[in-house]
């Protein structure tokens, strides 16, 4: 009986949680008149053309390309820099290691938003405002990824490397030829995490770009909202195609995604 009540509670709660997303999809297929005049769940006719209209009404093609370039570069760089640092912290004893770990932990607490003005000033000094470099560099490394790799590497038996060292293989080659090929799980987790976070980010591109050529999808969505304030079906269609990459990536790799989050909470 108790079990059944829990199930009923969970199912109702999950429907409530999904409702905004479902209502977004349903609205995106209605006509603008129907959306504001009727509360019927399903559209009287499915207007798939809303997606096309929304796409061409703004510069979404260029914005998708911008977001894709930035998110991909940040992802690749973060995986590489995190794997290297994670390896050093997991395997090599050196002076100042504990201090470094504390500093890295502290950087996790400090929100990027607090550093917006100085980061803008730094990038302005090197002429990187309104460039891909400016959007990519500040996110090219992150303590979260470093800790993720460090934890994973610590679980790999040392014997694997020691044999290679005795054969005279350098640490650099040990990392890339022996350790990294075994590190699929943290790599996939970090890659998906980083890509989705970059794709969804508004604040960073908003402060670091001003020209419309550099607009990312989330900025584009904000501009689209101002232009089509009351045309809810078009707005919902735009939100849908901007949101889909994140949702698809999550559904494709939900296990990794969820393990990644869970791992940081308990062990990180």
């Amino acid at each position, binding site marked *: 009986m108790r079990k059944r009540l829990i*199930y009923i509670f*969970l199912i109702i*709660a*999950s429907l409530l*949680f*999904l409702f*905004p*997303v479902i209502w*977004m999809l349903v609205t995106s297929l209605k006509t603008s008149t129907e*959306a*504001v005049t009727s509360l019927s769940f399903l559209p009287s006719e499915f207007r798939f053309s809303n997606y096309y209209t929304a796409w061409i009404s703004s510069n979404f093609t260029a914005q998708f390309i911008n977001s894709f370039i930035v998110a991909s570069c940040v992802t690749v760089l973060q995986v*590489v*820099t995190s794997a*290297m*640092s994670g390896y*050093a912290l997991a395997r*090599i*004893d*050196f002076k100042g290691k504990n201090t*470094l770990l504390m500093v*890295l932990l502290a*950087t996790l*607490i400090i*929100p990027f*938003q*607090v*550093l917006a*003005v*100085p980061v*803008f*000033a*730094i990038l302005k000094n090197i002429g990187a405002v309104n460039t891909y470099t400016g959007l990519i560099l500040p996110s*090219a*490394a*992150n*303590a979260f990824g470093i800790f993720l790799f460090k934890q994973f590497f610590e679980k790999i038996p040392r014997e694997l490397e020691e044999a290679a*060292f*005795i054969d*005279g293989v350098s*640490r650099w080659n040990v*990392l890339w030829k022996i350790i990294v090929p075994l590190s699929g799980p943290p790599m996939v987790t970090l890659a998906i995490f980083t890509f989705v976070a970059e*794709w*969804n980010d*508004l*604040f960073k591109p*908003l*402060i670091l770009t001003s020209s419309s050529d550099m607009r990312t999808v*989330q900025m584009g*969505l904000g501009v689209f*909202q101002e232009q089509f304030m009351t045309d809810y079906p078009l707005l919902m269609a735009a939100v849908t195609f*901007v949101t889909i990459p*994140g949702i698809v990536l*999550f*559904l494709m790799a*939900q296990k990794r*995604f969820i393990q990644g*989050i*869970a791992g940081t*909470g*308990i062990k990180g």
Partner: protein
Amino acid sequence: MTRKKRSVKYYKHSSSLAAWMFLLPAMAVISVFVVYPMFKVLYLGFFKWNGLSASMEYTGLANYTGLFYSSGFWSILWNSVLFTLLTVPASFVLGLALALGLWKTAILKNVLRSAFFVPVVVSTVGAGIVWVWLFNYNSGIINGILSLFSVKPVNWLGSEKLAMLSVSVMTIWKTAGYNMVIFLAGLHSIPEVYYETCLVDGVTGNWKKFYYITWPLLRPASVFVAVTTVIFSFRSFEQIYAMTRGGPVGSTKILVYHIWEQGFRFYRMGYASAVSVVLLVLVLTVTFVQFKLSGGRDGA
């Protein structure tokens, strides 16, 4: 044989240098874009700068006295605290409730967990726009459903009294799934043995089990959720940007929105830096207090 010896020795001697070579790329980025900006923001707070010109004017403590004596700043600070109070406990409790519900269920577990997690991966701007539509005064579904119970339409986002609550509801919806995942991992790490011994000790009933076993053992997860949710609420910006733009009449203007508006719309970078310093101090203090209250750093 000699080769073996030499190589082992070599790695011992060069280990410090090797470590820093591996750390170099990440540390360069983190130093330039996190550590250095922390000091730079303190420095910029003493200047008047429009963010465009090359010159800055030293103004001493003017930015700080300016915000101290402005009533606008105090109401923004209060809004941030209110937003935290409205979102953090609710998101914590909801995340815990969902995790406890899912914990021992077998059927549909993954499907339900994914459903609760979907809001986390939707972009905050996109989700904000969707909620603007749900909260719409004339044709939004929330007022539509209320009208079936003959409740008059509610001005969710347009009224000074309700806007903050409405933005908070959206934020709770967006963050609870994340907390649920942390709590679930915490629950699954509790060894079954503890519950078996409590049968022997005569501790029965679900509430007692929760109070004596689950809650104390869940502490690392609870501390982590508390800390991250508070930090998340202090850095919130996107939902405000998409849903209210700080309005109506500044009732949803919170610190990060203020930083963005002052610095990047009104080009008062020095003043925005001073506000950033206040936020930085706030985040560090609250995190420190949370760790102290929870008895050390075991949750980190």
